[in-house]
């Protein structure tokens, strides 16, 4: 997921950070323009397109029959898949998902799964034989940094956009969403923390910490990334940043 930047650009960005500045003039706690459009794909049960600056992610949700897992015979099934399509970046390659795509999908998955955003226990049909599967497909279209936040926001938005399948086995009034998890990734460059890095910033960042919170500010998932470290103080600061920004982003959902 990381590209290569020239050392000149690296020095420039790090130097700016030391002086409290960012390449595009934003504050460290400031997102780029965020737009969330839902209901963009008719063939999906729910969909959303999220743009954060130039970054653009399309998320589609399909609801289909599936077999349950043996140890959860009455529970619906959640599947999150991410495709870093090669049209989105010169660094994305053809072929099966690499570690970047796998991590992206799993971080989004955990935010939804661990917050119980979907009442999977209501998605059984016939015990041990038939349940509803919720396929969340993240399709990255343009990559200018911060894919995790864009994808997670798109996934929650697409879930909120779901129209139940036209199938007589579907008996609920509406799709059972219980929580609105929102992921915010905080990156460290030199010793400064910032949200929503653009790609150039992401490429020079030492480490990142994604914190997914729900409405009450409690955490449902975290993921540190990058080949650097974070101090204890930075982690706590990141939590406060993430919680505050998640509230802002959550307002974009409906």
């Amino acid at each position, binding site marked *: 997921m990381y590209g290569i930047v020239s050392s000149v650009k690296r020095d420039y960005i790090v130097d700016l950070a030391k002086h409290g500045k960012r390449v595009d003039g934003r504050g460290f706690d400031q997102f780029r323009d965020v737009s969330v459009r839902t209901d963009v*794909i*008719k*063939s*999906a049960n729910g*969909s959303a397109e999220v743009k954060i600056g*130039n970054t*653009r992610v*399309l998320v*589609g*949700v*399909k609801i*289909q029959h599936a077999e349950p897992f043996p140890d959860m015979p009455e529970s619906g099934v959640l599947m999150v*898949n991410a*495709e870093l*399509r*090669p*049209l*989105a*970046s*010169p660094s994305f390659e*053809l072929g*099966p*998902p690499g570690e970047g795509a796998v991590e992206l999908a799993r971080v989004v998955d955990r935010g939804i799964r661990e917050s119980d955003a979907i009442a999977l226990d209501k998605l059984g049909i016939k015990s041990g034989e038939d349940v509803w599967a919720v*396929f969340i*497909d993240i*399709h990255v*279209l*343009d*990559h*200018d940094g911060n894919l995790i936040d864009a994808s997670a926001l798109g996934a929650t938005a697409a879930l909120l956009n779901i129209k139940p399948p036209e199938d007589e086995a579907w008996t609920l009034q509406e799709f059972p969403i219980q929580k609105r998890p929102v992921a915010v990734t905080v990156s460290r460059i030199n010793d400064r923390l910032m949200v929503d890095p653009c790609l150039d910033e992401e490429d020079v960042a030492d480490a990142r910490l994604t914190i997914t919170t729900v409405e009450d500010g409690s955490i449902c998932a975290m993921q540190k990334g990058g080949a650097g470290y974070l101090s204890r103080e930075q982690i706590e600061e990141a939590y406060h940043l993430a919680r505050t920004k998640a509230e802002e982003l959550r307002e974009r959902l409906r």
Partner: protein
Amino acid sequence: MEKPEKLIVDGKRLDGRMPDELRSLRIEAGVLKRADGSAYVELGENKVLAAVYGPREMHPRHDQQPDTAVLRCRYNMAPFSVEDRKRPGPDRRSVEISKVIREALEPVLFLKLYPRSVIDVFIEILQADAGTRTAGINAASVALADAGIPMRDLVSAVAVGKVEDTIVLDLTKEEDQLGTTDMPIAIVPRKQLVTLLQMDGHLTEDEFKRALDLGFRGCAQIYEVQRQALREKYGVKEE
């Protein structure tokens, strides 16, 4: 899908179109930031995005050609683009379509200008309703122009078909599934040369000729919209 009694009533199709009428068509050039060139096409319910990267260095290196650039195309359907979720990754259908799209575009490119390099064309079908390969060619062709790749001309493509013995332009999914014949065609409009032609179904000689006629006329309409998209992006009048 319930089968309707007739697909053509009083000379009109189920969506109200005449047999020789295109669906609504929208083309936008330069819609992606990272790609060197890109285009978005909406044709009826189809939503298609194409991106071009290159000419760029070819990897793996032993695939480099000493006297020419290599054109690579990849046609891909998003999992949510179709009725039943499509499992990610290439299947035999998309491998074949990628090949015929590449062969449809190659005749208008001056690949010899860029030895050892590669031009990548990526086509993503975001929402599908029959005619995705031809919509993909239309998008890719505009994306190549948007990327500044020298071209002899654009390539314009459309599907022609046979529905209840009527030759019709630009099939919908319903017409494709219930009709008998699907014939995608791509044309270099100025010289009127065919760079893609496939067909499956049933056509007599006479029907075949009428289908070709209709395909050429449909492509001419698409060509205008493609050129308009580029004019809008670049704000210049073509000579």
